[in-house]
């Protein structure tokens, strides 16, 4: 794949950069863990982790913060992938935390906010010092300002005004007891890079990302497929439509987009001409305010 002038393509460059970051964490921090949601970004991140240590196994566990509101296809995918790679899976369960009374269900049904304390408890319980997340800087304005190695205090909080300078590829992973580092190996990838990489590297993804006919209802201009967690409300019309998911979050809140893309190539075609950010198009929970993500990150969210 090399060119005569010794230049890497953008995908090869991003791949190399991510592998460098993942290896650096394992070399410098004692107990890393990779946050795996079954979404496309964490799938790519897991694949990069595999490549970083091949032919050895991935030398750290994978953690899923389970909100209890999963698409079943995603859970199946998670379990299959973890088994294939022979990695340990740690599940941090939001329903268990609700049952134990450590967090309270929010009135709007979103578990986005309450997954943060559940995540932090699991981190403390397992003594994880480095958490790999699949966030990309092109997703959100607050994320655009975050470091690849994002230092977090004992409460998992992000202090955007007091970030460590990050020079060259010399990452500073030094922490005191109780502190941790969130690591974002995909920081410089865009949504399109992720899809191109899935295509080129032939990475398996959950079928939710591809279009199929589903029963949908329309809420606030967005389409939600009827499922275990979404039932038609009074006055809502159920329509049969070809839709796909552009992001995979909680099944009660993630909207689908009208689509006829049934292959990864067609998904790339769709994204290449689409004029809406993925979060804006599909996530009810990011619309609250201009600084919604910044506020959540300060509380310890990814």
């Amino acid at each position, binding site marked *: *794949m*090399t060119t005569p002038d*010794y230049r*890497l*393509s*953008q995908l090869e460059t991003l*791949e*190399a*950069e991510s*592998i*460098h970051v993942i*290896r650096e964490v*394992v*070399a*410098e921090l004692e107990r890393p863990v990779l946050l795996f949601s079954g979404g496309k970004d964490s799938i790519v991140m897991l694949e*990069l982790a595999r*490549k970083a*240590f*091949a*032919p*050895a196994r991935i030398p750290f566990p994978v953690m899923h913060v389970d909100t209890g509101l999963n698409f079943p296809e995603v859970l199946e995918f998670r379990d299959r992938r973890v088994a294939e790679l022979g990695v340990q899976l740690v599940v941090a369960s939001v329903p268990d935390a609700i049952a134990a009374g450590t967090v309270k269900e929010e009135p709007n049904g979103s578990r986005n906010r309450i997954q943060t304390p559940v995540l932090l408890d699991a981190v403390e319980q397992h003594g994880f010092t480095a958490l790999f997340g699949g966030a990309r*800087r092109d997703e*959100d*304005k607050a994320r*655009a*300002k975050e470091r690849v190695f994002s230092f977090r205090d004992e409460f998992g909080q992000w202090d*955007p*005004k007091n*970030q*460590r*300078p*990050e*020079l*060259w590829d*010399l990452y*500073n992973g*030094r922490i005191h007891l109780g502190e941790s580092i969130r690591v974002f190996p995909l920081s*410089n990838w865009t949504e399109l890079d992720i899809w*191109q990489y899935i295509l080129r*590297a032939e990475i398996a993804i959950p079928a939710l990302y591809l279009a199929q006919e589903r029963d949908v209802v329309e809420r606030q*201009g967005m*389409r939600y497929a009827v499922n275990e967690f979404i039932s038609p409300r009074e006055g809502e019309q159920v329509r049969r439509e070809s839709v796909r998911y552009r992001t995979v979050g909680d099944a009660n809140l993630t909207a689908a*987009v*009208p689509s*006829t*893309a049934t292959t990864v*190539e067609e998904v*790339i*075609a*769709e994204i*290449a*001409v*689409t*004029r*809406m*950010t993925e979060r*804006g*198009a599909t996530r009810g929970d990011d619309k609250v305010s*201009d*600084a919604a993500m910044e506020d959540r990150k300060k509380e310890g969210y990814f």
Partner: protein
Amino acid sequence: MTAAQHDAPVDVHSAAAEAAVEIATARKDILRIATAGSVDDGKSTLIGRLLYDSKAVFEDQYEAVERASAGGDYVNLALLTDGLRAEREQGITIDVAYRYFATPRRTFILADTPGHVQYTRNMVTGASTADLAIVLVDARKGMLEQSRRHAFLASLLRVPHLVVAVNKMDLVDWSEDTFEAIRDEFTAFAAKLDVPDLTVVPISALQGDNVVRRSERTPWYQGPSLLHHLEHVHVASDRNLVDVRFPVQYVIRPQSEAHHDYRGYAGTVASGVLRPGDEVQVLPSGLTTTIAGIDGPRGPVEEAFAPMAVTVRLTDDLDVSRGDLICRPANAPRVSQDLDALVCWMTDEPLRPRQRLAIKHTTRSVRAVVKELQYRLDINTLHREPGAGELGLNDIGRVRLRTTQPLFVDEYSRNRVTGRFILVDEATNATVGAGMLVPGT
């Protein structure tokens, strides 16, 4: 968002989709850009313009900005880039923000850095990985102290390409004389720095002239538009393909049935080209062996060069660990505990002689003591101040360090990877300094 957009799925077989796919999937390389300037120079507006005109801004982002700038005469494209609440409230850029856009020829990673002197550390951070730096100059004000500082920092970090965007040309009636005066002054200044490639472009970020397309309002300007220059600037020769430097990052030993005897040295190639069969030397042991094979992310490769992340297998079973370095026997870096460097200091508590610090150089972390602060550099006048007793926040000075263990170093001017390091405060764990190695005295 409009209802229409949500109602119709994209026709993935349309000519437009096919063209978009062709552009999106073409083999491209990455150009890393750092921009410097203050809000007053129109830097955020310029970036907003590049993103918007190259269609990297999505509809909902643009609409959010349109809402936020309601009441003004034009959409405030600067709001596309200021991400943090305090930034929007104060109308300033606090931290480095990264932006992404692509054209059919290249993809761009843009580190958007604030221009005020108190944020020198952020500009250094943004410039550290850049192939090209854009310095903004307000055509009405000409070259200011700040413009000199930005150009100097870019040259200090050895960003190979420098672009001066003379902005707000609309406010000086597109005056060729104004532009030429600034261009000549800047060129004279850059001659005193180590700037291998300087390009000066007259633009109006607000109105888009010479940003993406050549403007009809500057018929006297024969050069490319800014984006055209970014797409075509030649960066292939910027890298060091001569000196083989491979810092060992991690040792891979599967210890599994299938790979019982596998022992590979994982790392990112710093410079040079490695090939199976090459005779190599391992530092610090000095032992020589040959490369048995190189494994890349997709299996064995015949060549490895920067910045590939690979795993090198050696024919002999040597004791090699993280922090060691693989090079060629006839071309080894200097092995030394004494470092002469220009250091940019990044924290409130000043750097002083006799201070102890942790140092991270390639994959090697050791401790160091400040033996001597030779001079502080006035980054506006470039004057050396030999009597300085300390380096304060955002100061740059020449420092001599002594390390507890040898490092394998090259001068930064020769090798941007083995010539750089960071300094870390061992008490707070904060990154407090960035160093670039210079020839010893």
